[in-house]
């Protein structure tokens, strides 16, 4: 199969993909696997697609699948709006439109030779999942790999199979915590940022990838800086209401940057001041 590695900035035409599998992650989150009806297009961990439900509209969705298999794309979606609710209701066999991939990916090359720390809150595991899969594929390129995963409750945990598999994998150090639990949950309870001071990694020689609610990322960055991680080694991925995906429409503008074009992945110094903006 030919895999196209083409520049997509400026591409506004969606391509048809057929849904092959719908996996329900939680009560309001699904992962949709799609196969291209034309040539697959390569992507990098951290990039996103504009996913089009014909007749309803488009939404920017991070790619959550393995970059090594671009012929099988996965998008993990929480039902919060018209388009995402429609995506949650689609069945295998349905054709949807996808354009992309867009955006700046995670800095996987910069992390080589260093500890790789990944902090994910809620559905934030989806955009970092390709980075984890790729890092485990090329395990020898990295030092310690640490995943700190937070969720509101045990029932809100996504990618449970992956978490179980990674738990058993000695190549990655997985720590899971939930904000709220009742009897039956034997794991940690508390915010994910609480794990940062105590898990083993080298703060002076690491790269951190963070994805989740912005408040969580802000608290995480504070804890990482306190531990001695250089600010330029902390990366976050931001989301706003993206429309065009190519930096033309301005819907996702945050101060001087367009998240779709300049991000969605940013280093902490690039956006720390922007997250304090009260009104946009």
């Amino acid at each position, binding site marked *: 199969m030919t895999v196209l590695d083409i520049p997509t900035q400026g591409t506004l035409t969606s391509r048809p993909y057929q849904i092959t599998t719908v996996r329900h992650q939680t009560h309001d989150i699904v992962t949709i696997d799609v196969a291209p009806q034309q040539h697959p297009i390569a992507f990098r961990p951290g990039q996103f697609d504009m996913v089009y439900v014909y007749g309803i509209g488009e*939404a*920017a*969705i991070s790619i959550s699948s393995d970059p090594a298999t671009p012929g099988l794309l996965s998008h993990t*979606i*929480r*039902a*919060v*709006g018209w*388009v*995402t609710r429609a995506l949650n209701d689609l069945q295998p066999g349905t054709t949807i439109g996808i354009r992309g991939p867009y955006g700046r990916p995670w800095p996987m090359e910069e992390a080589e030779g260093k500890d790789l720390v990944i902090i994910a*809150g*809620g*559905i*934030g595991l989806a955009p970092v999942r390709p980075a984890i899969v790729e890092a485990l594929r090329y395990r020898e390129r990295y030092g310690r790999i640490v995943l700190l995963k*937070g969720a*509101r409750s045990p029932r809100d945990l996504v990618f449970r199979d992956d978490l179980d598999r990674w738990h058993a994998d000695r190549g990655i150090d997985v720590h899971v*915590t939930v*904000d*709220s*639990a*009742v*009897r039956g*949950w*034997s*794991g*940690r*309870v*508390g*915010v994910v*940022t*609480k794990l940062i001071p*105590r898990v083993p990694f080298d703060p002076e020689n690491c790269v951190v990838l963070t994805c*989740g*609610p912005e*408040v*969580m990322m802000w*608290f995480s960055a504070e804890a990482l800086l306190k531990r001695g991680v250089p600010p330029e080694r902390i990366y976050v991925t931001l*989301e706003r209401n993206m429309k065009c995906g190519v930096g033309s429409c301005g819907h996702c503008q945050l101060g001087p940057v367009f998240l779709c074009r300049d991000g969605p992945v940013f280093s902490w110094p690039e956006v720390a001041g922007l997250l304090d903006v009260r009104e946009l």
Partner: protein
Amino acid sequence: MTHRASLTAGDPDTLRVRLAGHPFCADLDVSHVHAMAEVTSERELPTGGFLLQRGQPADALALLLEGDVSLEVTEPGDDPIVLETLHGGDPVGWSWLFPPYRWLFDARCLTPVRLLQLDAAHLRGMIAADPVFGLALTQRIGQLVVQRLQFTRAQLVEMTHHDRP
């Protein structure tokens, strides 16, 4: 503190070393660590044992060495609501420092737990008698309270925040 624990080690030198190595005592003056060791015992609790129980006298500061503890509140006939889990390296409880010296929550062992237990009445006496020690200890408790408050606020935000797609 609910005494279902067993005393495991009372050797003063061992206690000093363990106290000095606990994160709660990091950078504390050596003389203060030695003074605290005088009112410290090492204890072990089994899985399911209660470190603290709501309404009971808050008579000790616990410094966890190993094991996991669930800080929780229970309503009669219902499952406990877990507020937070605490782990080796964490201190447990500050109600011993403030009247009426009673625990407000339960702390239940999720695993076998080993801890240092510092007698609260003696600690309060030491705080009153030595202002330098008193300031050092109360600042640490203050930091602990602030940190837990920040975590709790973050927890509240995360629990009420609606993720984007």
